[in-house]
C-alpha cells in the first residue's frame, strides 16, 4: 500500500500539492508514482521564472524503464525547481513527499479545485486503478 499523506492534495496523474505559508504550491509525484516508475535516474525540473499553464508538462522524471512527464496542476509562475534532484534523482524514490519535491509554483488565479483530489479521493482512485 503506498503512502498518501493527509495534509496534501492530489491529481489523477499522480502529482501531489502542498500549500506553503507564502502562498506558493510545492508539487511532486506521489509514492505510488515513484514506486510504479522504479529507480529514478534522471529528473528535469523547470527553471524559476517560467510560466506554466494548468495541465502543462513541465518536469520529466525518468527511471531505468521509462520517461514520464509531470504536469503542473495549476497555472502560474515557477518560483523554484528542485535542482538537487539533478545529482540525486533517487531522492524522489526515497522521500517523494519531502526531499523529492520537484517544483514550487506561485498560482496566478483560482485553483482548479474540481480537478484536485482529497487524500481519501486519491486513495479511492488508486484502489480503482489497481483493482
Amino acid at each position: 500500500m503506498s503512502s498518501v499523506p493527509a495534509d496534501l492534495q492530489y491529481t489523477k496523474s499522480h502529482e501531489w500539492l502542498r500549500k506553503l505559508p507564502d502562498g506558493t504550491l510545492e508539487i511532486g509525484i506521489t509514492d505510488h508514482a515513484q514506486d510504479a516508475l522504479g529507480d529514478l535516474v534522471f529528473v528535469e525540473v523547470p527553471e524559476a521564472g517560467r510560466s506554466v499553464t494548468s495541465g502543462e508538462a513541465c518536469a520529466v522524471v525518468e527511471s531505468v524503464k521509462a520517461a514520464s512527464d509531470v504536469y503542473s496542476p495549476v497555472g502560474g509562475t515557477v518560483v523554484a525547481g528542485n535542482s538537487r534532484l539533478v545529482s540525486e534523482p533517487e531522492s524522489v524514490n526515497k522521500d517523494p513527499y519531502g526531499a523529492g519535491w520537484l517544483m514550487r509554483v506561485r498560482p496566478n488565479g483560482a485553483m482548479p479545485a474540481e480537478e484536485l483530489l482529497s487524500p481519501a479521493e486519491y486513495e479511492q482512485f488508486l484502489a480503482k486503478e489497481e483493482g
Partner: protein
Amino acid sequence: MGRKTPLFPLHQELGARIVDFGGWDMPVQYTSQIAEHHAVRRAAGVFDVSHMCVVDLKGPRMRDFLRTLLANDVNKLKTPGKALYSCMLNEAGGVIDDLIVYFLNDTWFRLVVNAGTRDKDLAWIRGHAAAIEITERTDLAMLAIQGPEARAKMAQLLSAAGATAALGLGPFVGREIDGWFIARTGYTGEDGFEVMLPAAEAIGVWRKLNALGVASCGLGARDTLRLEAGMNLYGNDMDENTNPLESGLAWTVALDAPERRFIGRDALEEIEARGVPRKLVGLVLEDRGVLRSHQKVVTAGSPTSESGAAGAGAAGEITSGTYSPTLERSIALARVPANTGSAVQVDIRGKLLAARVVKPPFVRSGKSLIN
C-alpha cells in the same frame, strides 16, 4: 491474462512486479532494477527465462536442413553440446528471429527461440522441414544464473560429479548433468549458466539459489545487462524489415561456403554487393538524460528543423536505449548511415544532445569498455 511460466507463483510470493512480455506474465523487477543489475555484475543473479521457446528437432538429415534454415553455419558445431548463435532469415534477408542452436547428436538439434516470435518461428520451420520431428519442450523450465559467482553457486546444487562436469563446460557448451541440461551461455555479458530442467523442479531450485545468496532478477535488469553487453534484442534492434548486415550481426552470417544457399543468402549478397547503407552502432550520451528507442539521431549533414530539433530527414534512430547502471550514464544502440563518424546528436524531447559513437559492448565481465 498472459501465459505463465512454472515459476509464476514464486514470482508473486516474492513480490515481483509483473508485466506482459510477448504474451507472458513475467517479473520485471523484485526490489530494485538497479540493485538486481549490480547483483549480476558483482556476484550472481537468477532469471526466469522459461518463456523462451525450446524446440527439439530430430531427423536423419538435420545438418543439411539447418544449413539451409539458418544464416550461421551449423557445421561449425563439431562436438556434442556445442551451441551457435544465428539469425533465421526470410528470402529478403530480413530477420525472422535470432536463436541459439545446440548440436546434441547427428539426428538431434535443439533450438532456443524468442517467446514473442514462437508461433511464426514454428510455422516457418514446419514450412521448410520435411521428415523432421519438431517437439516444443513445454515440459521444461529455463533459469539463467549469471554473474561472476554464478557457476560456483549453481555447482553447489549438483552432485560432486555433476559439479565437476558443470564447472568443466567450455563457453557456449551445454550437456545433460544430473538430469538437467546445463549450458554455459547467457544474455548479460557475465559468465554463468542457462539451465533447462523439469518444470516441477524449477521453484525448488530457485529457492535454493536464493538461499545461497543468488539474487532474484527480473526482465528489467536483464534488459540493461544485455544492452551494456552490446547484445541485440529481437523486435528492437532487428526484425523482418532489417537484415543482419545493418544490425551489427554480420559476424553471425557465414558466407564462406559458397555452395551453402541458406534462406536469405541471395538477398544478402546483393545488398553487400551494392554496399550496406546503414549500420548499428553504440552510443554513449555525453549530456545528461536518457536515450530511448525511437529517438532520432542527427549526424553531420542530416537536416534539422528551424528550432534545431531533428527534422523529418533525421539520419538515424535509436533501437534500444537505457540508463547504464554500471557506467552511470545513458547508452544505446542506434541504426545510422554507414558513413557516420564518431559524434552524433540525439533529439530528446526537442533538444539535441551530444552522443559519442562507440563499438559495443559497453561492459564485459563487470568492466567498462568505454573510456
